[in-house]
């Protein structure tokens, strides 16, 4: 099923949301990805990925409380749904399996 496939960047975003626990909103996600992967992330790109993930049912979102910063505007917090968690697990186990198949010497960096 094409709709539930998880792209590389989608996986990164989904993992970041899981890592950020309750503080997962778009700016924080951007920062975290930038910090860990060391690549420039555009807000618009992250936003559209988040929307896509929500459409696929991997994340839920809700608006938080209004605060004084951000011009009084609310943040949208994301959390990983059960389906999201299952997919992440599946992806990880697939990768692990692949890792297991590789003889150790083959990946040793010389």
């Amino acid at each position, binding site marked *: 099923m094409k709709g539930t496939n998880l792209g590389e960047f989608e996986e990164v975003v989904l993992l970041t949301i899981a890592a950020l626990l309750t503080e997962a909103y778009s700016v924080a996600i951007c920062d975290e990805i930038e910090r860990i992967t060391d690549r420039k992330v555009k807000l618009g790109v992250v936003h*559209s990925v988040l929307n896509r993930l929500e459409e696929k049912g991997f994340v839920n979102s809700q608006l938080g409380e209004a605060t004084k910063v951000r011009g009084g*505007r609310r943040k949208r917090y994301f959390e990983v749904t059960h389906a999201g968690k299952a997919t992440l697990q599946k992806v990880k186990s697939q990768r692990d399996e692949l890792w297991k198949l590789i003889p150790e010497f083959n990946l040793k960096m010389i």
Partner: protein
Amino acid sequence: MSKLNPHIAPPAFASRLLRWFCHSDFHEELAGDLEENFLKNTEIYGLKKAKRKYTIEVLGLLRPSVIKKVRLFNYQNNTAMFKNYTLVAFRNLSRNRLFSAINILGLAMSMAVALLAIVFVTEIYSFDEFHKNKDRIYRVNNIVIKPDGELSVPYASTSLLAAQKIREQVPGIEKVASFFKGFYGDLKTENETYSIEGYFASKEFFEVFTFPMVQGNPETALTEPYSLVLTESTAIKMFNSTDVLGKTLLRRKTPYTITAVVKDPPRNSHLRFDVLGAQSTLASETRNSVLTDWNSMWSSYAYLLVSENRNLEQIQASIDQIAKEENAKSQSLNAKLRIERMSDIFPGEDRWNEVGTVMPNQRLSAMIILALIVIFSACFNYANLSIARSLKRAKEIGVRKVVGAKQGQIFTQFITESILVSLISLILAFFLFRLIRPEFLSLDFYISRTTTLELTTSTYFYFFLFTVLIGFLAGCIPALVMTNFKPISIMKGIANMKVSEGINIRKILIGIQFVLSMGFAILVTLTYKQYQFALNFDLGYETEAILNVELQGNDFDIVKSAFIQIPEIEGISGSAFMPSTGSTNSDHAKIESKADSVVVYSIRINEDYIQNLKHEILAGGPINDDLQKKQMIVNEAFLKQFELGSPIDAIGQIVDYYNENREIVGVIEDFHYGTIYNDIQPFAFIQSEGYLNYTNLKIRSKDMNSTMAKIANAWNSIDSNHDLQASFFDEDIERTYKDLSSSMKTYGLLSIVAISISILGLLGMAVYTAEARLKELTIRKVLGASVQSLVSLLSKNFVIIFIVSAAVAIPTSYYLFKNTIAQNMEYTINIGFWELGSGAILVITTALLTISSQAIKAAKANPSESLRSE
């Protein structure tokens, strides 16, 4: 973070842009995210760079997932909604009968005018479309350069010599069809005579143009001299059959053989003919100078069929070369040759000596512009009244919005409504159209000659399309105004709502309407006065009770002897044509002792003419018909031009004019041989020398009908083949100014429409204002205001609009009159206050009456009636 610092704020433009394109579901969080980033960036990079980053980020959000979905219609249940819109629209129409009537009537009137314009324009543009090679046919036009200056005159005609040279010398041209327009007069069968008109056409005629044959071979039909091609209807008229090949007809005692029969030229052809003679005939006749003279270009035409891969510039260059060579050889004509696309002929530029009637471009665009003006005026009405009434419907809109109607849906609703109104108007407009069609056809010489205004399927389709467009245009502004109502302010109370922008739009719309109405009214007045002026112009001789009878080829003396028996005819004279009706004739005149030759206008007359038309003789006497002594009579301008001194001194002078030495035997007072478009130039009456075409009968009769019957009888006794062609001189003059009278009628018709529409609109506005301010008025009245002061209170605003409109309309229409209608006139009316003011005053008075009728009604109402109701 110091949010309170007003300087640290994201760039306003980018924020607004974001708000504009961003989907409302996402705007809050995204704006927040951006602002958070912005504040962070300000601390890291400084304000300037942060702002730039913000803008870039906003632009980065321009992606399909973020942008609003643009949707006018709600696709899920649009039929149900449209049903509802229609229902609501009909309810509204029937609730506000007066306003609906005003809207529908106004739209219908203007649409009737627009329908005329649509039919007219489609018909005009269908001209010459039937030729198979229409894209490759070009006409050669002569542009004559006058010897005295830079002035060049465009002609539609060219010489047959030019056609022949092009045929022989210019590469890149497949065929050259030329024709000479001189094939008119009588054709005789064994026992009947028919008057026909046609061309001497070259043999390529049927290869260039598409006129399908009924009988005969198109390639050879016009090859032999004295061959003749008839149209189907002419053949049937003469022989009652189209099976006529090989039969002969007599023209000027020469037999012509019929070689082909063609279908009649369609109505939308600029070439019209009954018969075609072979152009090779001209070579065998004596007048073959037509074929070989560079300067006999006045009634012959050349059409080129260029090859598929033409190079127009090259063709034009070769033709220029021909013109250059011929101009060098010729003393009397200096002309350029220009090629013109077939599709540019009709409608096209105004040229001299057109083949047939041509619709000049300016006339066509004037028609379209005027129709548009009227249409816009009616659309303004609709917009105006709808905006004015919009407050009444604010609650409906508020409820719709609260229930969840999107802006697009509200817009659609009001557009649906206005399209509905315009469709209803279309039905009415269609009847109006039928009503004014004959009027329109008789309006203008050009129109009746060229169009029939028949309806076709495509015009019906255009009508419908146009109606929907009008509905959209008219509904656009009110729909936008209403779409932008904020539900909150509606719910808070209509009384608090301000539609102040609306008021300004309305004032401007009314103003424009009145400028148009007044402008039309003033133009009508001016044109009417000018027309009357032209008809009653003192020509310097008497035209009253003069009946001009066309001789139609009959000998003058025979006609005279027939008419002289009628006792009511007081005088009979003859002339080549009638002065003061637009025709002129001129040649160079020279007096031995004076250096320069001068252009002198002239008319050939017989000896009784001067006395019959009561010309004032200053010296000498009338000419006589004695051809041994060539004589002429000249006017005062002639004396002045040649410096001949007093009239008596001029008698006996010999003038070289029209290839003869003529003696001046009389001097007459200046008179207007031309029209009001010409001033008085040197002029001469010369002897007829057998060139009389008209006889002028001075009639004194108490019973005109019986006299006319006698004249007709006398005519029939001498010529049974032609009907009597007679008209009074005054009628001839009237016909001369047909142009003027037709523009007068056009403006008249339009001004009636425009004034009615604007008065209707005004009535609507007045009713609305009186209604909306009813409570205010009654309270004022209770407190002691007089009816008068209430009326002036209501009318004040309108009066200001009228005054401003008049201030715009008067100078504009004066300028228009001077620059279009009176542009080339030598003699025009004096334009004073009443000429300019009366139109405006008429419109203002009608408008004021309309307003005050409503105002008085409101002011006189019993206060308790309206105060009790709450």
